[in-house]
């Protein structure tokens, strides 16, 4: 009787070990939740110190942070656009505006990049919407990832 019990217990341990080993080997390197991220940092590379008011034609600095957690190497392009409070941008549709700058980066899975950008806005505006959209290159060309950031700012002319 005890022979059968001993055999059953040890065999059960071995079967469970085999199943765990096989599942670990088959799922190794897979990403459970793939995503890309974009963030905008202020001139001091800090969150939330973005300029609220800028002067027409006067350059100001920002940093664009992008991160790849897609489980594969990605070629990102960040498009910078200027709109206003009627400019729509969301997860499915980018802003229907011509970009004034593009910033590119190729990142392997798990890598991130902080890109310094210098921007100057050409015309005065109240509540200008400075939009940064994250695009990626795929086999069928470029596509909008559905991720974006925007900053509100007033663009004033010199007195």
């Amino acid at each position: 009787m005890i022979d059968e019990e001993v055999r059953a217990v040890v065999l059960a341990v071995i079967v469970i070990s085999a199943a765990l080993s096989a599942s670990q080997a088959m799922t190794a390197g897979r990403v459970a939740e793939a995503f890309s991220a974009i963030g905008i940092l202020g001139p001091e590379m800090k969150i939330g110190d973005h300029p609220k008011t800028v002067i027409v034609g006067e350059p100001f600095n920002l940093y664009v942070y992008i991160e790849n957690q897609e489980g594969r190497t990605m070629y990102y392009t960040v498009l910078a656009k200027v709109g206003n409070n009627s400019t729509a941008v969301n997860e499915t549709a980018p802003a229907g505006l011509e970009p004034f700058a593009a910033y590119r980066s190729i990142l392997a899975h798990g890598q991130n990049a902080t890109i310094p950008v210098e921007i100057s806005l050409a015309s005065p505006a109240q509540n200008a919407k400075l939009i940064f959209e994250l695009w990626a290159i795929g086999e069928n060309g470029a596509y909008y990832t559905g991720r974006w950031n925007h900053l509100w700012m007033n663009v004033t002319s010199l007195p």
Partner: protein
Amino acid sequence: MALAAASASAIAPAALASGEPGSHSRTGAAAMPSESAQETVLAEIQAAFLLLSDAESRGANVTSAAVDLNRALALASSGNQQSVSEAAAIVQGVRSSVPSLLAEGEAARYWGTVGLAAWLAALAAAGILVYLYTPKLVWRIWMRSKRRWTVSAQ
């Protein structure tokens, strides 16, 4: 930092292919490459990236090549002729490394499969050995540990 989130949709704006690097990367006019040279290198970078993506999907480790390609991208966007030429050379190097990366990837995948199969075979063999010899072993150990016992019958 605000992190945006969402799914994907399609369509490429012309600006993605234009090679316009933005005002921050512009340098003196004398050192500027022609627009077409810069665009050519950016197109080559994109083509090399697609090659790397394909190699990666077939098991190649392309991390180092991706870092090189990103450096080429920075050089191509930085604006002067010398940097664009350097970027073109890096892209060429990355393209020529793809076959060896693919070979390494396929070898790594093959040996990974062999290792897994060997591990599962070893576990199966262990199961058979356990089934055959464990009771004998357990009783031998039990006998050895109780050999000083005395048994009395009443």
